[in-house]
């Protein structure tokens, strides 16, 4: 993941890496970009910029290493540096505030939800999607990377430039926030929760 140029690839090698290792991830890249920006045009621009940067800095990519994580890191950085400011969807929480306030690794793993697995299973895709989209971008991001894209904590740590402990605690908080949103939907759907039965 280092930006340091390791070697110079020939034109043929560059094409092979680009087509064989970068382009297969375009579906995941577009989905990530769309869930960050909530706008089709912004998502397209973000993905396109990411691929152009990836090509431009291809010599700093080591062939055969984790191309998907490398691309996601570029996309995430582009989003923070360039798109977040002009995004049509204003950030719900100030990034610095989140970084300072939520980056503590000290997290309480007490249960915060009375919701039941059954009520979650019956939820519609739209409800899940809306709940995910309503989270602040830093929480939304860790859930997308872990649950939708299947990255490991270590890969997420490199993509997000944060320690593994912070990945773990941010994920836990993100899922708790998601549970709160889903619990609201569950009540609207008429599911009883333990809280209501007591």
């Amino acid at each position, binding site marked *: 993941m280092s930006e340091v140029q390791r070697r110079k690839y020939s*034109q043929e090698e560059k094409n092979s890496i*680009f087509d064989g290792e970068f*382009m297969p991830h*375009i*579906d995941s890249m*577009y*989905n990530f970009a*769309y869930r960050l920006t909530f706008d*089709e045009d912004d*998502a*397209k621009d973000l*993905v*396109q910029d990411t*691929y*152009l940067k990836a*090509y*431009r800095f291809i010599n700093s990519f080591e062939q055969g290493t984790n191309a998907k994580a490398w691309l996601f890191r570029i996309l995430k950085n582009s989003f923070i540096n360039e798109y977040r400011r002009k995004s049509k969807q204003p950030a719900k929480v100030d990034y610095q505030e989140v970084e300072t306030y939520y980056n503590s690794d000290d997290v*309480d*793993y*007490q*249960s915060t*939800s009375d*919701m*039941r*697995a*059954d009520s*979650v*299973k019956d*939820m*519609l*895709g*739209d409800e*899940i*999607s809306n709940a*995910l989209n309503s989270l602040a971008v830093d929480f939304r991001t860790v*859930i997308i990377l*872990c*649950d*939708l894209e299947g990255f*490991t*904590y270590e890969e997420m740590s490199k993509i997000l430039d944060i320690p593994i402990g912070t990945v*773990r605690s941010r*994920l*836990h908080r993100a*899922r708790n926030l*998601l*549970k709160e949103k*889903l619990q609201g939907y569950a009540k609207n759907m008429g599911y009883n929760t*333990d809280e209501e*039965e007591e």
Partner: protein
Amino acid sequence: MDMNEESTQGRKLKCTDTSKCFELLESILDGEIDNSKEILKEKLAKCQPCFAHFHLEQAIRDVLKNKCTKHEVPNELVDSIRKQIQEIK
């Protein structure tokens, strides 16, 4: 019907260390713990709060993975990327 009562089946109703247990269960669900099958089996068989927490967390991961709509990549995006790459080659 109280499903909580029904599903306890010999499990203790209070967890002695929810903080440690829930962190472990969440790491297992995220695939971060090797050889977790036995640990998980024992925890879920003995402790009701761990059992409930595990299944709720698992359900959330499942719906996120299976029900969050994938946005289709616009057709012109791949062509546009390739065209721009050609220009900078």
